[in-house]
């Protein structure tokens, strides 16, 4: 077996992180973590948000320095003071949020930070040639002269991989590489990964999607609260086992969903056009209908108009054309308050920006919407006793973990903040609920809880529009699934008839002929 | 973290304000200011300053002045400040008359604060040296009946509003303009004269209009080109204006405001002659400045002091004219002026003084 990779770089036979400790003010992010990866394998790193996966990998890539512990490569200790040191040692990282400069071309992005053969002058022609060679070796099709902002997400990811390979990466850290891809793009990406492993690269695959981990990795290590729970071969592992390792208790992955008791139409969206932030239309003729007692899931790859749709339905973004009927009332041009008064609740995508005020207390956030009404206030004066009582009830009912009702919201975890928002929105007994990415960035335990609550609400007759980029979530909760692509609904299918492959094609814009 | 950063940037701003505060700070360390000023501006003052000014005696007369530009602007502000220094020397130095000043008060609210400050500190006479300060002054003066105020250029003492403690002063700049126009038209070889003013209003406009009238009467075939820069302080644009005039054929230039220093430089470089306004600008370009109209405020200042001492706190409006010697034409001995030009200029002064010439329209029939 050759000791060199197809790029001509030496392999990293083994990388070991031993006893890594990393502290941040008030947080022990990594608590004596051991982790290793060998050439020719994919080692998955699994854990909830905040379990310490990213922190661990950032230390391997030189972005942070460990407080304790050491990193060995092929048995030799290395100290990484900056990403440059890690790059020099043959380590590459594909970040979850791509590290690309949109205003530069592919070649420029790859050349960035490299030593030029022409001294201070750029040698983009040489870089381009090598990119083309690498692209062919690893079957990563790319136009070197395209600007990054012109590329689709999947293509941008190829640029990231090429960037790492160009720098001689023998070990690649892949931080949630599938988060923004359609199922088909994920399949393509996995083909590339398998090829790389065959060629002798070592890959670290970070994810919280259990089925992907089971599909691609050879070994899996689970982190929880900064510490290692265990490392085991993937073969023979099950989703339930891994989920239990992550959360620390058994987790329900399949929900019982009684057949929907469909009521009358609650929310009707008729052919709406809505402008995006850049002025051009983000929604181009969207029509949807949600009935009482059903959950309509809206699937799609990020950035296809989901955010604009949610905001338009909440009254936050003007609707240029078309109409929205809520409980029989035309609310197309009504204010957010009018929507609330008409019985609609809204769980926004950006919970810290639109859903809550992070410096306000738990109680203040709880009454944010209805603070001017009874029982919270009387004749413009707050009734603090009633506020405290109602908030305490909600906090208990929705098991929000908070030290006190006066704690500033920012001190709570993402899951608990989301539960509080859920408590606020659902305690109003809405007839219509718009839930945008309700479990994004929320740990599995809290996700499970939120899902159960949404299903309870469905039983209670609420018409729910669930907007999510997590296809598993859509499939687990929805009665019907609509797919959005470039501001249009590609098709609507019944959840029990839908397959992942079919939805994936629709998410990529391939129209569904029958609805 | 965030608030630390905010405080840090605030600190930088504060530090900057402190440093810049040395220029436009609102009237705080008065006695110190005076001492320093005398050290720098030693030339016209004979008095040797020993330490701080003598302790306040009964007869010390305290004057404060607030002005838009600096005491070295070679124009409007300097003319008043030098006038004060001259009167101070005549009265017997800082022991007899104290001068405090705030310069660089381009912003009216800052100036108003300074005026009020000086008044509440018990200055006998507070001068608001800028027509833009008038409105503020009319609000401040009634609050301090024990203090006399003065402002210019204007002739409005606010008596109509029942205010009795405000003097007003104005320069008949058109008179000086007329004479310099006469002089320039007679000296010009090309027959083209260039005038660059700051803003088409007030003192500057009077001067410019007088200059044009004088030139056209002296040489009806002469061409007087006029431009304004829209700013009292844009030196660069004033220089460009002078360049433009010269490119348009002018060989005699004039202008007013403190920004003319830029234009004088261009005149010097291109060999044109300059006529100064408000202050003697010869020093800046000894071979270029032919003559200047100089404001001599000493008469006005002395009369105001005498009045205040006699208990008259305001109500008088002063003008600077050739007749009351408030206007003086200062010739530069370093520049040769043809005899006939000088004769014509002198005749113009005489005509203005005896009333046979109206500076904005010409000789009366």
């Amino acid at each position, binding site marked *: 077996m050759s000791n060199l990779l197809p790029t001509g770089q030496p392999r990293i036979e083994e990388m070991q992180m031993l006893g890594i400790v990393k502290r941040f003010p008030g947080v022990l992010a990594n608590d004596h973590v051991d982790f290793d990866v060998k050439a020719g394998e994919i080692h998955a790193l699994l854990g909830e948000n905040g379990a310490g996966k990213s922190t661990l990998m*950032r230390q391997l890539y030189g*972005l942070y320095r460990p407080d304790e512990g050491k990193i060995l490569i092929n048995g030799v200790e290395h100290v990484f003071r900056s990403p*440059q*040191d890690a*790059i020099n040692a043959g380590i590459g990282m594909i*970040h979850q*949020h791509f590290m*690309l*400069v*949109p*205003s*530069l071309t592919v070649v420029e*992005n790859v050349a*960035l*930070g490299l*030593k*030029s053969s022409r001294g*201070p*002058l*750029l040698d983009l022609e040489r870089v381009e040639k090598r990119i083309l060679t690498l692209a062919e070796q690893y079957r990563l099709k790319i136009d070197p002269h395209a600007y990054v902002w012109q590329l689709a997400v999947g293509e941008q990811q190829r640029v990231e991989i090429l960037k790492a390979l160009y720098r001689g990466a023998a070990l690649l850290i892949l931080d949630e590489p599938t988060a923004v891809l359609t199922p088909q793009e994920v399949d393509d990406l996995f083909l590339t990964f398998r090829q790389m492993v065959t060629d002798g690269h070592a890959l670290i695959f970070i994810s919280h999607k259990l089925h992907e981990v089971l599909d691609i990795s050879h070994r899996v290590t689970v982190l929880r609260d900064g510490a290692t729970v265990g490392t085991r071969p993937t073969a023979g592992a099950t989703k339930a086992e891994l989920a239990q390792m992550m959360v620390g208790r058994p987790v329900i992955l399949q929900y019982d969903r009684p057949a929907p008791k469909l009521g009358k139409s609650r929310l009707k969206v008729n052919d709406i056009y809505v402008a995006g932030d850049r002025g051009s239309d983000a929604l181009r003729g969207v029509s949807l209908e949600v009935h009482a007692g059903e959950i309509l899931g809206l699937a799609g790859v990020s950035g296809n108009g989901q955010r604009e749709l949610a905001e338009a339905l909440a009254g936050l973004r003007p609707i240029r054309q078309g109409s929205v009927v809520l409980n029989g009332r035309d609310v197309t041009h009504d204010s957010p308050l009018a929507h609330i008064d008409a019985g609609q609740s809204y769980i926004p995508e950006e919970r810290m920006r639109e859903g809550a005020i992070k410096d306000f207390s738990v109680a203040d956030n709880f009454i944010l919407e209805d603070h001017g009404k009874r029982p919270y206030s009387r004749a413009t004066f707050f009734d603090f006793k009633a506020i405290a009582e109602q908030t305490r009830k909600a906090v208990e009912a929705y098991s929000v973990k908070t030290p006190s009702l006066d704690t500033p919201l920012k001190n709570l975890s993402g899951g608990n903040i989301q539960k509080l928002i859920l408590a606020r929105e659902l305690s109003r007994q809405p007839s219509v609920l718009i839930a945008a990415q309700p479990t994004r960035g929320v740990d599995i335990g809290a996700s499970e809880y939120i899902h159960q609550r949404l299903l309870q609400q469905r039983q209670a007759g609420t018409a729910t529009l669930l907007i999510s980029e997590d296809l598993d979530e859509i499939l687990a909760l929805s009665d019907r699934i609509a797919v959005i692509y470039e501001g249009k609904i590609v098709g609507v299918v019944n959840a029990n008839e839908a397959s992942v492959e079919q939805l994936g094609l629709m998410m990529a814009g391939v129209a569904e002929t029958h609805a | 973290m965030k608030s630390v*950063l*905010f405080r*840090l*940037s605030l600190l*930088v*701003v504060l*530090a*900057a*304000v*402190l*440093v*810049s505060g*040395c*220029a436009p700070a609102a009237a705080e360390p008065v006695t110190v200011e005076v001492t320093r000023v005398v050290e*720098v501006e030693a030339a016209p003052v004979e008095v040797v300053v020993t330490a701080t000014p003598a302790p306040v005696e009964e007869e010390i007369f305290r004057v404060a002045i607030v002005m838009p530009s600096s005491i*070295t602007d*070679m124009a409007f502000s300097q003319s008043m400040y030098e006038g004060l220094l001259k009167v101070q020397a005549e009265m017997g130095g800082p022991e007899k008359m104290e001068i405090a000043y705030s310069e*660089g008060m381009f912003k009216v609210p800052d100036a108003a604060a300074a005026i009020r400050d000086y008044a509440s500190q018990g200055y006998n006479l507070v001068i608001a040296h800028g027509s833009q300060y008038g409105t503020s002054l009319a609000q401040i003066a009634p609050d301090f009946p024990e203090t006399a105020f003065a402002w210019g250029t204007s002739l409005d003492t606010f008596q109509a509003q029942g205010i009795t403690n405000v003097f007003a002063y104005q320069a008949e700049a058109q008179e000086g303009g007329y004479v310099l126009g006469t002089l320039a038209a007679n000296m010009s070889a090309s027959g083209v004269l*260039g005038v660059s003013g700051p803003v*088409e209003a007030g003192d500057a406009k009077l001067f410019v209009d007088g200059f044009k009238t004088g030139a056209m009467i002296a040489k009806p075939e002469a061409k007087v*080109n006029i*431009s*304004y820069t*829209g*700013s009292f*302080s*844009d*030196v*660069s*644009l004033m220089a*460009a*204006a002078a*360049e*433009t005039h010269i*490119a*348009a054929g002018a060989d005699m230039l004039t202008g007013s405001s403190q920004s003319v*220093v*830029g234009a004088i430089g261009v005149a010097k470089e291109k060999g044109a002659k300059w006529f100064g306004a408000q202050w003697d600008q010869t*020093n*800046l370009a000894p071979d270029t400045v032919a003559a200047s109209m100089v404001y001599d405020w000493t008469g006005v200042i002395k009369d105001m002091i005498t009045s205040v001492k006699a208990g008259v706190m305001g109500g008088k409006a002063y003008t600077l004219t050739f007749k009351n010697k408030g206007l003086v034409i200062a010739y530069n001995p370093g520049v040769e002026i043809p005899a006939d030009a000088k004769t014509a200029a002198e005749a113009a002064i005489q005509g203005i003084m005896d009333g046979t010439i109206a500076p904005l329209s010409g000789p009366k029939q």
Partner: protein
Amino acid sequence: MGDLFTLPVLLGILYSGIRLATPYLYAAIGETFVQNSGIFNLGVEGIMLMGAYVGFFVGMTTGSLWLGLLGAALVGLLMGLLMAVVSVTFKAEQGISGIGLHLFGMGLSSLLFKKTLGGVESISGFQPIKIPLLGDIPLLGDVLFNHNLLVYVAFLLVPIAAFVLYKTTFGLKVRSVGQNPQAADSLGINVAQIRYTTVCIGGTLAGIAGASLSIALINLFQENMTNGMGFIAVALVYFGSWRPGGVLVGALIFSFVNALQLWIQVKGINLPSDLAVMMPYVLTILALAFAVRRARQPAALSKPFERGEN
């Protein structure tokens, strides 16, 4: 109106416009580097004033304009360094620290002026150099090729800056740091070092911009003599959509229109002077409103870089 567009007038506009544009070019090209790296330095005006003062004072006392120029560049460099420390290392709010720097430069230059000079004096500045052959072209030769050294250098700076920004590894680093510092950092580029460098380049050029007024174009120093030029220079960077060529176009339009409005007045064309002097500013505002390609704005402009934030 026909009187206005005669050959001498057009040549005059060309000549004055080139001179008026010179300080803007130094300051705005410097700021182009600064902003492309993601720093917003609003203190250009203050640096220009200090450069103008130091250039003049050193030039006058030593008798060497070159030393004056060097002094202006150095003081600009130091003030740039100060801005970099505050905005890069301490991550302070850049708009506010820029205003602070402006007030600091304005106050300190006024104070030093009073302490050392006392009054306005003039100096013999850099003399025009006629370029052989080109300077002999009839009409245009004198207008285009008979300027002082600092004018030529200002215009040469434009292609040089474009070359550095678009053809060198340094330029690529500058642009990437301004667009996505996290990405640059992940590739081993020292974000702070790049930003320090550009802010110092910007400071140095702003210092020279000031000196171009005090020892090459107007040849005197007066308090607050830049009169807002530094702020116009910052606006020109937006106008030019963060590209040296665009900045050149902006500086020339602004300066030519300014020269034109003076000619309009001198030629006695019946237009109120207040309207005439507004022309360049109105034009600049219109251009800013309509011509700026926001898409080119460095995405990280005026955002401090924090490693590990996404």
